C-alpha cells in the first residue's frame, strides 16, 4: 500500500519499521474474515485492515490519537489471528505495539480508564500485590452489581467476576527449581507473575514432567514479569525494562551452567519473550543478548515434543477439547505439538469448531472490554460444548480462567493432563470428574 511519511518522520526507527509493515499491506481484506471483533461488530474500523489504515493515517500525519482511533485500537484483542491469515506477511503485532505506544504518548484517557489501567499495570505483574487484590476482590463480590453502575465500574465488576473462577485453584508461593542426577539438559522455567499466584499447579506439573525426563529446572529468584501485560497497556518503556531485566537474569544463567531452553507454560508470555530480540533491536547493549534469549524460548509443549518422551502410566481415553490460545497458535504458530502430546498420552483429542477465534481473555482484555469479551466467551463455550468433551485443555492461564468462568466442564492446562497421565497427581479441578 502506498504510504506518505515525511523523511524526518522516517528517521525515527519505530516509524520506519512501521512504514515497512504498512507497505506490505495490500488492503486485500482477507484478515477481516478471521478477526473476532469484525465478526461481532461488522465495522471496518474494528477489523485488522481498518485498524492498520487508521494507524497509518495517525502515524503519517504525526497526529495525536483521537478518541475514535483509541476506541478501535482498544477493542483489538491482540489475538494475532490476522497475522496467521495475512498472505502478505504484515506484522500487525509490531504495528499495533507502536500504535499503542503512540496512544500512550499523545492521548489522555478519561480518569476512570487511566486509574484502572494504572492499577492493572501496578498489580498484575507483582505476585504479592495480586494476592492482596484477589482477597479484596473476594470480599467485594457482594457489591459488584452496584459497582457496575459507576463510571468505569463495569470493568471492576468484570474483574471481581473473573476472580471468582479462581476459587478452585489454590494460591501458592513461588517454586524453587529442581535438580536431577546426571541431567540430560538444563532449562529455565518462567515462573510467570499471575501464574505464580493463580496457577502454581501448572508449573509444578511442568517441573515434574521435565525432571522425569532428566531435565534440570532453574527458576531464577530475581526473574520478573515478561512485560506482556504492560506492553499491551501501552507502557512501552516499562515493557522494555522488564525485557532487559529478564535478559540479564537468563543471560547470567546461560553463563553459569548453560541453558538449553527457556521454557514457558503461559503462551501469552512466550510470544513476548520470543519477541525480545525485536523489542530490544535498537539497544546496542542488549540487542544481541536479547536475540539469544528469544532464540532459546520454547513453549513447554514444543520442548517436550522434541524429547524422547516416556509412555503414560494411567488409563486415559477421556475426550479432551483442545483450545489453542491465540498466543499459541497465532503468536507462536505452535499448533500440533500440544495435541500430539495429548494423543500420545491416550486422550481422545477433539478440534473445536472456529478454533482460530479468540475466547476473549487476551491478557487484560476481559477486564477492559468486558462486553466483547463476554460475547466471545459465550461463542467459544458454545463451540467447545458442540464436541462434547469431558475435559478442556489449553496452554494459557488467561484462557483457562476465561473459559472456566463460562462452562461447567473442567478446564486444565495441557501439561497438567500430560503429567497426570505419566503418573503425576490428578489436577484439583478434575477431582470427581473422571468417573
Amino acid at each position, binding site marked *: *500500500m*502506498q*504510504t506518505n511519511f515525511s523523511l524526518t518522520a522516517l528517521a525515527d526507527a519505530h516509524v520506519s519499521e512501521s512504514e515497512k509493515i504498512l*507497505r*506490505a*499491506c*495490500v*488492503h*486485500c*481484506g*482477507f*484478515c*477481516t*474474515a*478471521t478477526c473476532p471483533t*469484525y465478526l461481532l*461488530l*461488522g*465495522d*471496518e*474500523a474494528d*477489523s485488522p485492515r*481498518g485498524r492498520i*489504515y*487508521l494507524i497509518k*493515517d495517525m502515524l503519517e500525519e504525526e497526529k495525536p490519537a*483521537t478518541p*475514535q*482511533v483509541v476506541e*478501535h485500537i482498544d477493542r483489538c484483542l491482540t489475538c494475532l489471528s490476522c497475522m496467521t*491469515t*495475512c*498472505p*502478505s*506477511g*504484515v506484522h500487525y503485532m509490531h504495528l499495533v505495539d507502536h500504535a499503542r505506544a503512540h496512544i500512550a504518548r499523545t492521548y489522555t484517557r478519561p480518569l476512570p480508564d487511566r486509574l484502572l489501567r494504572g492499577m492493572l499495570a501496578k498489580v498484575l505483574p507483582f505476585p504479592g500485590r495480586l494476592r492482596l487484590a484477589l482477597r479484596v476482590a473476594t470480599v467485594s463480590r457482594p457489591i459488584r452489581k452496584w459497582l457496575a453502575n459507576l463510571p468505569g465500574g463495569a470493568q471492576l465488576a468484570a474483574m471481581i467476576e473473573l476472580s471468582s473462577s479462581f476459587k478452585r485453584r489454590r494460591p501458592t508461593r513461588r517454586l524453587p527449581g529442581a535438580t536431577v542426577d546426571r541431567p540430560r539438559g538444563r532449562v529455565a522455567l518462567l515462573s510467570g507473575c499471575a501464574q505464580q499466584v493463580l496457577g502454581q499447579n501448572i508449573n509444578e506439573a511442568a517441573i515434574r514432567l521435565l525432571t522425569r525426563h532428566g531435565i534440570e529446572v532453574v527458576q531464577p529468584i530475581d526473574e520478573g514479569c515478561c512485560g506482556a501485560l504492560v506492553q499491551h497497556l501501552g507502557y512501552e518503556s516499562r515493557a522494555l525494562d522488564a525485557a532487559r531485566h529478564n535478559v540479564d537474569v537468563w543471560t547470567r544463567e546461560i553463563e553459569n551452567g548453560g541453558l538449553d531452553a527457556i521454557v514457558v507454560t503461559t503462551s501469552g508470555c512466550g510470544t513476548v519473550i520470543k519477541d525480545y530480540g525485536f523489542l530490544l533491536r535498537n539497544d546496542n547493549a542488549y540487542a544481541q543478548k536479547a536475540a539469544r534469549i528469544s532464540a532459546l524460548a520454547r513453549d513447554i509443549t514444543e520442548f517436550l515434543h522434541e524429547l524422547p518422551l516416556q509412555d503414560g502410566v494411567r488409563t486415559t481415553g477421556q475426550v479432551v477439547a483442545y483450545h489453542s490460545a491465540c498466543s499459541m497458535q497465532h503468536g507462536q504458530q505452535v499448533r500440533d505439538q500440544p495435541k500430539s502430546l495429548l494423543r500420545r498420552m491416550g486422550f481422545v483429542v477433539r478440534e473445536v469448531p472456529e478454533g482460530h477465534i479468540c475466547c476473549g481473555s487476551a491478557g487484560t482484555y476481559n477486564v477492559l472490554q468486558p462486553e466483547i469479551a463476554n460475547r466471545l466467551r459465550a461463542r467459544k463455550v458454545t463451540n467447545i460444548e458442540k464436541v462434547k468433551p469431558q475435559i478442556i485443555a489449553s496452554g494459557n492461564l488467561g484462557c483457562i480462567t476465561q473459559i472456566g468462568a463460562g462452562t461447567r466442564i473442567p478446564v486444565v492446562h495441557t501439561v497438567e493432563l500430560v503429567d497426570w497421565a505419566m503418573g503425576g497427581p490428578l489436577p484439583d479441578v478434575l477431582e470427581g470428574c473422571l468417573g
Partner: protein
Amino acid sequence: MSKIRFTEPNREILARRDSIINDLTRLVDPAGLITSTDECRAYETDALTAYRKMPLAVVLPKTTEEVSAVLKYCHDTGVKVVPRGAGTSLAGGAIPSEDAVVLGLSKMNRVLAVNYDDRFIRVEAGVTNLSVTAVVAENGFFYAPDPSSQLACTIGGNIANNSGGAHCLKYGVTTNNLLGVRMVLIDGSIIDLGGDYLDSAGLDLLGLVVGSEGQLGIVTEATLRILKSAEGARPVLFGFPSCEGAGKAVADVIAAGIIPVAIEYMDKAAIEICEAFAKAGYPLDVEALLIVEVEGSDAEMDATLADITAIARANGATTVRESRSAIETAAIWKGRKSAFGATGRVADYLCMDGTVPTGKLSYVLAEISKIVQRHGLRVANVFHAGDGNMHPLILYNANDPSQQSKAEAAGDDILRLCVEVGGCLTGEHGVGIEKRDLMRYQFDDADLVQQIRVRAAFDPRWLLNTDKVFPLDFRCQG
C-alpha cells in the same frame, strides 16, 4: 499520478452534511452510523488502494427495512449511495465519493434458511462466500463459485460483480448459481427476483441484476444453489519449460472438450511468490505451472488425468505431480488463492482482469511481457486459464508516482490487447472506476446507450454508485 478522474462533489450536498447525518440517525441504529473523520477514513477505499475518497457518512444497517429507509431518504433528498460488501473489489467498485453515503452490508451476515432437499441456502448479502460453504460442508454440500478472495468477500459483492473463481470452469460463475434475491430499489421499494429454483417465471431480471455493480439496487438477501461435493478431487501440478507450452496445453485441453474442475496458471514469478508463502511444493525449476483439478470416482479421475497428461506432455510438460494428501491439496489451493496477497511481500501491484479466447492465451502472454517491459516494469501472471480469464499483476512501487502512471498505462495497453484479440475488459472483477474509461473501447455508443437506459429504468437519478462503470461524460446521453 492518479489518472482516474472523480467528479466534483455536489457542494449543495456537502453543505447539508450535518442535517443529512441528523436525519440518518433516525433511520438506522446508532451503532450503524459512522460520521467521524477517523472512522469514515476506514471506508475511503477498497482493494484498489491507489484511489481514495472520503465518504459523507457510512451506514451499516442490520435489516432490509433499514436499507429501504436509508435508500428512500437518499432518493428523496438526492444523496448518492455507494453499496459496499467487504471492500475487496479490485476495480474500485466500493470506493465512495465525498457527496455519497456508503451503505455497508457487513452487519447483515445471518444465514436465513438451509434446504437440503431442494438444495438451496438463503443468506443475507453480507455473509462471506466461504462461510456459505462452511455452513453446508458438514452435510457434504458446497457453494460452487470460489473467488480467491472467498474468505472475505460477500455474496452481495459477488452478485454485483458476477464473481468467479478457480472451480467455475466446471460449475459456472455466480450467475449460474444464484436462484433469487431480495433487493431494495433506490426509492426504497423492496422486490424479490427469482425464487428457490433455477429459471423462475417472468422476465429474467435476476440475470440483469447479476453483474450490475450495485447500480440497479442493493441486494439484501440471496438464495443460492448448493451442490453435493464430488466423491473425490485431486489437483495435479504440471510444470512447463515455457509459457507458450503451458498456454497451448490449456487451449488443447479445452479444444478436446475436456472440462476439469479447474485449470489455473502461474508463471515463474508467481510460482516463487506463492511457494514462499504456502510451501505447497510447486516446482521452482519451470517457467510456467498449471494446477489442474479433476474430480469424481478414482476411475473417472484416472481416465481424465491420463488424457490431460498426454496433452501436457505433448506440449512439453516436464513435471507432473499429483497431490498425495488432503494437507497437500489444501496447501496447493492456499498458495493459489493467496497469490495476490502474497505478491504484496515483493511489490505493489495492479491486478488486471481481461478475458481472452483460450486459443489466444500463448500469444497474449507473450505480448503482455512485451508491453510491461516496454513500460519498464515487471509482471507476474496467475489466473483462471481454463476460462481464459487473465490476471497479469503489474508490479510497481506505489510510492513512486512515475511508476504508478507507467503501471496504469501498461494496464490499459493490456486490456486493449484483450479486446483486440476478441476478449473483454473484465472477466470477473467488474468495471468499477478502474476500467470505466475503457468501456468505449469495448462497446460502441449504441451498446452503451442501451445499457444506460436499463440502468436509468432502475435508478433514474443516477444515485447508486454514480461514478462507476459508464464513462463520466456518457450519462447525459442516456
